[in-house]
Protein backbone atom coordinates (compact mmCIF):
# COMPACT_ATOMS: atom_id res chain seq x y z
CA UNK A 1 0.00 0.00 0.00
CA UNK A 2 1.39 3.36 -1.05
CA UNK A 3 1.63 6.50 1.00
CA UNK A 4 -1.51 8.59 1.39
CA UNK A 5 -1.66 12.08 -0.10
CA UNK A 6 -1.49 13.46 3.41
CA UNK A 7 1.68 11.47 4.18
CA UNK A 8 3.36 12.86 1.06
CA UNK A 9 2.30 16.38 2.04
CA UNK A 10 3.46 16.05 5.65
CA UNK A 11 6.79 14.55 4.68
CA UNK A 12 7.53 17.31 2.17
CA UNK A 13 6.57 20.04 4.65
CA UNK A 14 8.56 18.42 7.47
CA UNK A 15 11.63 18.23 5.26
CA UNK A 16 11.23 21.82 4.10
CA UNK A 17 10.64 20.75 0.49
CA UNK A 18 8.33 22.67 -1.85
CA UNK A 19 5.01 20.93 -2.46
CA UNK A 20 1.65 21.90 -3.99
CA UNK A 21 -1.74 20.35 -3.27
CA UNK A 22 -4.78 20.68 -5.55
CA UNK A 23 -8.30 19.82 -4.37
CA UNK A 24 -11.50 19.89 -6.43
CA UNK A 25 -13.79 21.91 -4.17
CA UNK A 26 -16.76 22.39 -6.53
CA UNK A 27 -18.10 20.24 -9.36
CA UNK A 28 -17.66 16.61 -10.35
CA UNK A 29 -15.27 14.68 -8.11
CA UNK A 30 -15.26 17.25 -5.31
CA UNK A 31 -12.66 16.21 -2.77
CA UNK A 32 -10.34 14.65 -5.39
CA UNK A 33 -6.70 15.55 -4.84
CA UNK A 34 -3.48 15.83 -6.73
CA UNK A 35 -0.13 16.52 -5.14
CA UNK A 36 3.04 17.77 -6.80
CA UNK A 37 6.01 16.94 -4.64
CA UNK A 38 9.68 17.78 -4.78
CA UNK A 39 11.49 16.49 -7.89
CA UNK A 40 8.14 16.49 -9.70
CA UNK A 41 6.67 13.37 -8.10
CA UNK A 42 2.90 13.27 -8.61
CA UNK A 43 0.34 11.43 -6.49
CA UNK A 44 -3.44 11.22 -6.77
CA UNK A 45 -5.76 12.43 -9.50
CA UNK A 46 -8.45 15.06 -9.90
CA UNK A 47 -10.51 12.79 -12.14
CA UNK A 48 -8.83 12.30 -15.51
CA UNK A 49 -5.45 12.61 -17.18
CA UNK A 50 -6.07 15.70 -19.25
CA UNK A 51 -7.43 17.61 -16.24
CA UNK A 52 -4.42 16.50 -14.18
CA UNK A 53 -2.01 17.60 -16.90
CA UNK A 54 -3.44 21.13 -17.10
CA UNK A 55 -3.71 21.57 -13.33
CA UNK A 56 -0.18 20.23 -12.75
CA UNK A 57 1.16 22.92 -15.05
CA UNK A 58 -0.68 25.57 -13.05
CA UNK A 59 0.40 24.02 -9.75
CA UNK A 60 4.01 24.24 -10.78
CA UNK A 61 3.60 27.95 -11.62
CA UNK A 62 1.72 28.70 -8.40
CA UNK A 63 4.35 26.88 -6.36
CA UNK A 64 7.11 28.85 -8.01
CA UNK A 65 5.33 32.09 -7.09
CA UNK A 66 4.35 30.81 -3.64
CA UNK A 67 0.66 31.53 -4.38
CA UNK A 68 -2.39 29.81 -2.93
CA UNK A 69 -5.87 30.25 -4.41
CA UNK A 70 -8.75 28.90 -6.48
CA UNK A 71 -8.93 28.35 -10.26
CA UNK A 72 -11.68 27.22 -12.61
CA UNK A 73 -11.52 24.54 -15.29
CA UNK A 74 -13.74 22.49 -17.57
CA UNK A 75 -14.19 18.80 -16.77
CA UNK A 76 -11.14 17.94 -18.87
CA UNK A 77 -9.09 20.95 -17.84
CA UNK A 78 -10.49 23.34 -20.45
CA UNK A 79 -9.60 26.97 -19.83
CA UNK A 80 -12.40 29.58 -19.60
CA UNK A 81 -14.85 26.97 -18.37
CA UNK A 82 -16.24 26.85 -14.89
CA UNK A 83 -17.43 23.27 -14.34
CA UNK A 84 -14.79 22.74 -11.67
CA UNK A 85 -13.32 24.90 -8.96
CA UNK A 86 -9.89 23.73 -7.87
CA UNK A 87 -8.10 25.01 -4.78
CA UNK A 88 -4.34 25.05 -5.30
CA UNK A 89 -2.26 25.37 -2.17
CA UNK A 90 1.47 26.08 -2.30
CA UNK A 91 3.73 25.10 0.53
CA UNK A 92 6.99 26.92 0.01
CA UNK A 93 9.94 25.98 2.21
CA UNK A 94 10.40 28.32 5.17
CA UNK A 95 12.31 31.55 4.51
CA UNK A 96 15.91 31.59 5.68
CA UNK A 97 17.61 33.98 8.04
CA UNK A 98 21.40 34.01 8.23
CA UNK A 99 22.75 35.77 11.30
CA UNK A 100 26.43 36.65 11.29
CA UNK A 101 27.94 37.20 14.71
CA UNK A 102 27.31 34.97 17.73
CA UNK A 103 26.50 37.67 20.30
CA UNK A 104 23.73 38.23 22.88
CA UNK A 105 21.62 40.04 20.31
CA UNK A 106 21.88 36.95 18.15
CA UNK A 107 20.26 34.69 20.74
CA UNK A 108 17.27 37.05 21.00
CA UNK A 109 17.01 37.39 17.22
CA UNK A 110 17.05 33.62 16.78
CA UNK A 111 14.09 33.34 19.16
CA UNK A 112 12.01 35.98 17.38
CA UNK A 113 12.94 34.65 13.93
CA UNK A 114 11.81 31.17 14.96
CA UNK A 115 8.45 32.58 16.08
CA UNK A 116 8.14 34.07 12.58
CA UNK A 117 8.88 30.71 10.96
CA UNK A 118 12.41 31.28 9.66
CA UNK A 119 14.97 28.57 9.13
CA UNK A 120 17.80 30.20 11.08
CA UNK A 121 21.55 29.82 10.60
CA UNK A 122 23.99 31.44 13.03
CA UNK A 123 27.51 31.92 11.74
CA UNK A 124 30.61 33.24 13.45
CA UNK A 125 34.24 32.63 12.58
CA UNK A 126 35.07 32.25 16.27
CA UNK A 127 34.35 28.61 17.12
CA UNK A 128 34.23 29.32 20.83
CA UNK A 129 31.12 31.50 20.33
CA UNK A 130 29.44 29.61 17.51
CA UNK A 131 28.03 26.70 19.51
CA UNK A 132 24.63 25.02 19.50
CA UNK A 133 24.68 25.27 23.28
CA UNK A 134 24.52 29.06 23.06
CA UNK A 135 21.88 29.00 20.31
CA UNK A 136 19.72 25.97 21.01
CA UNK A 137 16.86 27.22 18.82
CA UNK A 138 18.98 27.86 15.73
CA UNK A 139 18.55 25.29 12.96
CA UNK A 140 22.23 25.49 12.01
CA UNK A 141 25.24 26.90 13.85
CA UNK A 142 28.39 27.29 11.74
CA UNK A 143 31.88 28.18 12.92
CA UNK A 144 32.88 29.65 9.60
CA UNK A 145 33.87 32.85 7.87
CA UNK A 146 30.78 34.65 6.52
CA UNK A 147 31.97 34.77 2.92
CA UNK A 148 32.79 31.04 3.03
CA UNK A 149 29.30 30.21 4.28
CA UNK A 150 27.73 32.43 1.62
CA UNK A 151 29.82 30.68 -1.04
CA UNK A 152 27.93 27.51 -0.23
CA UNK A 153 24.40 28.76 0.62
CA UNK A 154 24.29 32.13 -1.18
CA UNK A 155 22.68 30.73 -4.32
CA UNK A 156 19.71 29.46 -2.26
CA UNK A 157 18.86 32.96 -0.96
CA UNK A 158 15.92 34.84 -2.46
CA UNK A 159 13.58 37.73 -1.90
CA UNK A 160 11.91 36.16 1.19
CA UNK A 161 15.22 35.56 2.95
CA UNK A 162 17.22 37.78 5.29
CA UNK A 163 20.84 38.35 6.26
CA UNK A 164 21.52 40.07 9.59
CA UNK A 165 25.08 41.09 10.36
CA UNK A 166 25.47 41.64 14.10
CA UNK A 167 29.23 41.40 14.58
CA UNK A 168 30.01 45.12 14.20
CA UNK A 169 33.61 44.26 13.57
CA UNK A 170 34.84 45.30 10.12
CA UNK A 171 36.95 42.18 9.82
CA UNK A 172 33.74 40.07 9.76
CA UNK A 173 31.18 42.66 8.64
CA UNK A 174 32.82 43.64 5.36
CA UNK A 175 33.15 40.12 3.91
CA UNK A 176 29.63 39.23 5.17
CA UNK A 177 28.11 42.28 3.47
CA UNK A 178 30.02 42.09 0.20
CA UNK A 179 29.24 38.37 -0.13
CA UNK A 180 25.54 38.98 0.71
CA UNK A 181 25.33 41.67 -1.97
CA UNK A 182 26.24 39.06 -4.57
CA UNK A 183 23.10 37.07 -3.68
CA UNK A 184 19.41 37.78 -4.37
CA UNK A 185 18.65 37.96 -0.64
CA UNK A 186 15.70 40.29 0.05
CA UNK A 187 17.02 41.88 3.24
CA UNK A 188 20.50 42.82 4.41
CA UNK A 189 20.64 44.48 7.83
CA UNK A 190 23.83 45.48 9.61
CA UNK A 191 24.17 46.42 13.28
CA UNK A 192 26.20 49.26 14.69
CA UNK A 193 26.02 52.82 15.94
CA UNK A 194 25.91 55.66 13.43
CA UNK A 195 29.63 56.11 14.00
CA UNK A 196 30.34 52.42 13.36
CA UNK A 197 28.11 52.65 10.33
CA UNK A 198 30.08 55.60 8.90
CA UNK A 199 33.39 53.93 9.46
CA UNK A 200 32.13 50.68 8.00
CA UNK A 201 30.64 52.45 4.98
CA UNK A 202 34.09 53.81 4.15
CA UNK A 203 35.53 50.30 4.35
CA UNK A 204 32.74 48.98 2.16
CA UNK A 205 33.37 51.66 -0.47
CA UNK A 206 37.04 50.67 -0.48
CA UNK A 207 35.87 47.08 -1.02
CA UNK A 208 34.00 48.17 -4.14
CA UNK A 209 30.44 48.56 -2.81
CA UNK A 210 28.62 51.15 -4.96
CA UNK A 211 25.70 53.52 -4.33
CA UNK A 212 23.15 51.09 -5.68
CA UNK A 213 24.44 48.38 -3.34
CA UNK A 214 24.17 50.80 -0.40
CA UNK A 215 20.43 51.13 -1.05
CA UNK A 216 20.11 47.42 -0.22
CA UNK A 217 22.01 47.66 3.05
CA UNK A 218 19.83 48.51 6.07
CA UNK A 219 22.37 50.06 8.41
CA UNK A 220 22.05 50.84 11.24
CA UNK A 221 19.77 47.82 11.39
CA UNK A 222 16.18 47.93 12.61
CA UNK A 223 12.95 49.85 12.82
CA UNK A 224 12.94 53.01 14.97
CA UNK A 225 10.85 51.78 17.89
CA UNK A 226 13.30 52.81 20.62
CA UNK A 227 14.54 49.26 21.25
CA UNK A 228 17.20 48.87 23.98
CA UNK A 229 17.46 45.25 25.09
CA UNK A 230 18.53 42.37 22.82
CA UNK A 231 14.92 41.15 22.75
CA UNK A 232 13.52 44.57 21.84
CA UNK A 233 16.22 44.94 19.20
CA UNK A 234 15.23 41.57 17.74
CA UNK A 235 11.63 42.83 17.44
CA UNK A 236 12.90 46.04 15.85
CA UNK A 237 14.92 44.10 13.26
CA UNK A 238 12.04 41.78 12.41
CA UNK A 239 9.63 44.72 12.22
CA UNK A 240 11.94 46.30 9.64
CA UNK A 241 12.10 43.07 7.65
CA UNK A 242 8.30 42.81 7.57
CA UNK A 243 7.81 46.48 6.69
CA UNK A 244 10.34 46.26 3.82
CA UNK A 245 8.67 43.17 2.45
CA UNK A 246 5.20 44.74 2.54
CA UNK A 247 6.41 48.19 1.46
CA UNK A 248 5.00 49.92 4.53
CA UNK A 249 6.29 52.73 6.71
CA UNK A 250 6.25 51.30 10.21
CA UNK A 251 4.19 53.99 11.95
CA UNK A 252 1.40 53.04 14.34
CA UNK A 253 -1.86 51.77 12.88
CA UNK A 254 -3.59 54.48 14.93
CA UNK A 255 -1.93 57.17 12.81
CA UNK A 256 -3.01 55.66 9.52
CA UNK A 257 -6.28 55.22 7.67
CA UNK A 258 -7.65 52.54 5.38
CA UNK A 259 -7.80 48.78 5.72
CA UNK A 260 -5.49 47.01 8.20
CA UNK A 261 -5.08 44.00 5.91
CA UNK A 262 -4.39 44.36 2.24
CA UNK A 263 -7.55 43.26 0.46
CA UNK A 264 -7.28 40.01 -1.43
CA UNK A 265 -8.36 39.79 -5.07
Amino acid sequence: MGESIFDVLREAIDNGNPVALATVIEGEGAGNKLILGPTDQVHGTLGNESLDRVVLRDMSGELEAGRTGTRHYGLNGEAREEALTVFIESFAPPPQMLIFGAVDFTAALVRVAKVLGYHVTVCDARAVFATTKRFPLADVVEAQWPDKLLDSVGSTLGIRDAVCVLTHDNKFDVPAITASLKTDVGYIGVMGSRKTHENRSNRLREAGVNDEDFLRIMSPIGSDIGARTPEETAISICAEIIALRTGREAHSLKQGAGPIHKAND
Partner: protein
Amino acid sequence: MKEILEDIEKWKKADKRIALARVVKVEGSGPRDPGATMAVNEDGEVAGSVSGGCVEGAVVSEALDILSSGERKIVTFGYSDDEAYAVGLTCGGTIHLYIEPLDW
Protein backbone atom coordinates in the same frame (compact mmCIF):
# COMPACT_ATOMS: atom_id res chain seq x y z
CA MET B 1 -1.14 23.77 7.75
CA LYS B 2 2.50 23.58 8.80
CA GLU B 3 1.91 24.59 12.40
CA ILE B 4 -0.85 22.03 12.97
CA LEU B 5 0.83 18.97 11.44
CA GLU B 6 2.08 17.79 14.81
CA ASP B 7 -1.40 17.85 16.36
CA ILE B 8 -2.89 16.11 13.34
CA GLU B 9 -0.24 13.42 13.52
CA LYS B 10 -0.96 12.88 17.22
CA TRP B 11 -4.70 12.56 16.54
CA LYS B 12 -4.15 10.20 13.64
CA LYS B 13 -2.01 7.96 15.85
CA ALA B 14 -4.84 7.93 18.42
CA ASP B 15 -7.25 6.93 15.61
CA LYS B 16 -9.30 10.10 15.96
CA ARG B 17 -11.40 11.17 13.02
CA ILE B 18 -10.35 14.63 11.81
CA ALA B 19 -11.96 17.35 9.72
CA LEU B 20 -9.93 20.06 7.98
CA ALA B 21 -11.26 23.55 7.30
CA ARG B 22 -9.16 25.52 4.84
CA VAL B 23 -9.58 29.14 3.77
CA VAL B 24 -9.92 28.90 -0.04
CA LYS B 25 -10.97 32.44 -0.85
CA VAL B 26 -11.08 35.83 0.84
CA GLU B 27 -13.05 38.82 -0.44
CA GLY B 28 -12.35 42.27 0.93
CA SER B 29 -10.44 42.57 4.18
CA GLY B 30 -9.88 39.24 5.87
CA PRO B 31 -7.70 38.32 8.82
CA ARG B 32 -6.12 35.20 7.27
CA ASP B 33 -5.07 34.45 3.71
CA PRO B 34 -6.10 31.46 1.60
CA GLY B 35 -4.35 28.36 2.91
CA ALA B 36 -5.00 29.10 6.60
CA THR B 37 -6.12 25.79 8.06
CA MET B 38 -7.91 24.61 11.15
CA ALA B 39 -8.25 20.97 12.15
CA VAL B 40 -11.00 19.62 14.40
CA ASN B 41 -11.04 16.08 15.79
CA GLU B 42 -14.05 14.00 16.75
CA ASP B 43 -13.74 15.11 20.37
CA GLY B 44 -14.05 18.74 19.32
CA GLU B 45 -10.37 19.52 19.92
CA VAL B 46 -8.99 22.25 17.69
CA ALA B 47 -5.61 23.09 16.12
CA GLY B 48 -4.90 26.15 14.00
CA SER B 49 -7.28 28.92 12.99
CA VAL B 50 -9.00 30.39 9.95
CA SER B 51 -9.82 33.90 11.18
CA GLY B 52 -8.99 36.17 14.06
CA GLY B 53 -11.23 34.08 16.28
CA CYS B 54 -14.51 35.39 14.84
CA VAL B 55 -15.81 32.22 13.21
CA GLU B 56 -13.83 29.40 14.82
CA GLY B 57 -16.71 28.40 17.10
CA ALA B 58 -19.04 27.98 14.15
CA VAL B 59 -16.37 26.09 12.21
CA VAL B 60 -16.11 23.53 15.02
CA SER B 61 -19.81 22.71 14.79
CA GLU B 62 -19.67 22.56 10.97
CA ALA B 63 -16.63 20.27 11.20
CA LEU B 64 -18.31 17.95 13.69
CA ASP B 65 -21.40 17.75 11.43
CA ILE B 66 -19.12 16.87 8.53
CA LEU B 67 -17.40 14.16 10.56
CA SER B 68 -20.74 12.48 11.17
CA SER B 69 -22.12 12.97 7.64
CA GLY B 70 -18.85 12.42 5.75
CA GLU B 71 -19.76 15.15 3.26
CA ARG B 72 -17.47 17.93 1.99
CA LYS B 73 -18.58 21.47 1.47
CA ILE B 74 -17.80 25.12 1.02
CA VAL B 75 -18.95 27.28 3.91
CA THR B 76 -19.03 31.05 3.63
CA PHE B 77 -18.78 33.54 6.44
CA GLY B 78 -19.31 37.20 5.80
CA TYR B 79 -20.47 40.34 7.44
CA SER B 80 -23.25 40.79 4.92
CA ASP B 81 -24.73 37.31 5.30
CA ASP B 82 -28.44 37.79 5.84
CA GLU B 83 -28.63 36.04 9.17
CA ALA B 84 -27.76 32.74 7.49
CA TYR B 85 -25.14 32.35 10.17
CA ALA B 86 -25.22 33.76 13.62
CA VAL B 87 -21.54 34.65 13.35
CA GLY B 88 -19.56 36.70 10.86
CA LEU B 89 -16.32 38.55 10.42
CA THR B 90 -16.30 41.87 12.20
CA CYS B 91 -13.74 43.24 9.71
CA GLY B 92 -16.33 43.37 6.94
CA GLY B 93 -14.75 40.78 4.65
CA THR B 94 -16.04 37.44 3.45
CA ILE B 95 -14.16 34.16 3.76
CA HIS B 96 -14.93 30.90 2.00
CA LEU B 97 -13.84 27.73 3.74
CA TYR B 98 -13.63 24.23 2.34
CA ILE B 99 -14.39 21.75 5.09
CA GLU B 100 -13.84 18.03 4.61
CA PRO B 101 -12.90 14.90 6.50
CA LEU B 102 -9.17 14.12 6.50
CA ASP B 103 -9.72 10.76 4.81
CA TRP B 104 -6.96 11.18 2.22
